């Protein structure tokens, strides 16, 4: 191709040289087939180490190395899980827990959003509401259990109230800082464009603080599950937390493991839902736009 030859041997030590032979595309199927030898798909390889671990666990259980009061064998857990699904028991408890979590979460998030809008959008609102919110947020919500039980009894109200107190503050804090951290240059641009206050809030401040809101929402979701584990051990007859504490009383390690599994699966599912929401609502963000 070129008249001048490339001499890599003569190259100075101060150079990085690359000399690759031109790729020859022999279009014979034979070569392609040998190159494309069967390889296990990635997800299968990924599954190998957990499966080996499960196998070791099963062997340890069967040989009596791991007694079932420490932890049940995987086969036993699987069997119990199937039985609980088939009998509808698991579904019932799951549904009760989900309702509690979602009710508490929706109330808590609503309070957090309203409070953040009040403090974020008005100076006076910040003066009045921000310091009490900052004081309340430092109280761990689970420390309120004794007081709530005295006030509201041990019924459903206390459980929901505890989830509410846990989920309000992450949304409040993140949305408030999101509102306050909007680029002042954009606010200035909006002012030169003649936007009134209502338009400024709707077109600039709310969309601009949405990413922070989602951060808060994720925290709140995590906390709602955490609170659930705890509150469902107070005088309950249904729910995943009840299932776990009941299993503890009967030393059913298999059921406890199933409850843990459910928490982690639900966490993943909810995170997936939030991710989808973000992808839709924050489509303008460079990270999403580039894809």
């Amino acid at each position, binding site marked *: 191709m070129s008249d001048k030859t490339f001499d890599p041997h003569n190259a100075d030590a101060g150079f990085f040289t690359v000399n690759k032979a031109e790729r020859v595309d022999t279009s014979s199927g034979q070569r392609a087939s040998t190159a494309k030898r069967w390889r296990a798909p990635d997800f299968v390889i990924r599954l190998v180490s957990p499966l080996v671990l499960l196998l070791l666990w099963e062997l340890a259980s069967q040989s009596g190395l791991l007694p079932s009061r420490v932890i049940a064998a995987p086969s036993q857990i699987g069997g119990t899980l199937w039985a609980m699904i088939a009998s509808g028991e698991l579904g019932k408890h799951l549904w009760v827990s989900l309702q509690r979590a979602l009710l508490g979460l929706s109330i808590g998030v609503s309070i957090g959003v309203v409070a953040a809008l009040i403090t974020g959008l008005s100076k006076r609102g910040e003066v009045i509401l921000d310091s009490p919110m900052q004081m309340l947020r430092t109280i761990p919500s689970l420390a309120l259990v004794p007081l709530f039980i005295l006030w509201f009894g041990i019924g459903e109200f206390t459980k929901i109230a505890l989830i509410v107190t846990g989920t309000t503050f992450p949304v409040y804090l993140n949305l408030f800082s999101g509102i306050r951290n909007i680029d002042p240059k954009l606010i200035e641009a909006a002012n*030169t464009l003649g936007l009134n206050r209502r338009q400024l809030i709707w*077109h600039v401040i709310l*969309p601009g603080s949405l990413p922070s809101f989602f951060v808060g929402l994720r925290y709140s979701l995590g906390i709602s599950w955490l609170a659930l584990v705890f509150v469902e051990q107070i005088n309950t007859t249904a729910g995943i937390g009840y299932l776990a504490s009941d299993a503890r009383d009967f030393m059913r390690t298999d059921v406890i493991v199933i409850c843990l599994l459910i928490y982690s699966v639900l966490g993943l599912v909810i995170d997936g839902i939030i991710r989808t929401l973000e992808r839709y609502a924050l489509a303008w963000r460079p990270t999403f736009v580039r894809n």
Partner: protein
Amino acid sequence: MAALDLLHTSSPVEPRNPAPVQLRNVVRQFGEQRVIDGLDLDIAPGEFVALLGASGSGKTTLLRTLAGLDNIDSGQLRVPLARAAVFQEPRLMPWKSAWKNVVLGLNIDNAKARAEEALTEVGLSHRLNAFPATLSGGEAQRVALARGLVREPKLLLLDEPFAALDALTRIRMHQLIIDLWRKHTPAVLLVTHDVDEAILLADRVIVLANGKIADELHIELPRQRSTGQAGFQAIRTRLLGLLGVEAGAEHTHESESAVDEPTHEKLRRFANAR
């Protein structure tokens, strides 16, 4: 006259004067420092004024005052309410598509059609639905320009709008701004620190120093201007002198620019050809 904004009118501004921008003895101070110190300025309808000055000379404060983003402490100020500003950064709302950015804050029925018209004017009819994050610097700045012009301003304020653009894009933007100015005929105030840019674009160049007008110069070079035009270098030398660029420094600059000029011309031809 109804669309004019009267501030601090201790004595009425003579109504027969048609100048859309009138400043009389305007003072703006931050603490002890007078950033604008007794400034008088008229801008005629449709006049293109460039404002030059070293940093700290008060040019940005003056522009912000005219844009309604800053108050004055004393004096008289009259600017049209129909005004628009384009800044160095495009300042587009990242969550709104290009066309929604253009008509943001406008209460009109045929918003999309108006936005499309304005974006077509700046050569972006194909980017109507693009988010700002996907636009190049020049494209974003053109959207910002369309957003200003769609409001049919009587006064267009430009705060170093081309400073962050690459040389080729800047040359194209110069041409675009002149075309749009001719079409919409707003009065323009361009704040810049680029002497060549000021001479290429403006009818009148004002040099600001210590919050006052140090000097002004009517540029009577025929348009389409270029840096190689007869008389250009003389004006440039004079303005650089007014800006306090020392004779020695200026010489080196000029000898540099002697080499630079043909390149600039080539760039310009290249940019216009595209």
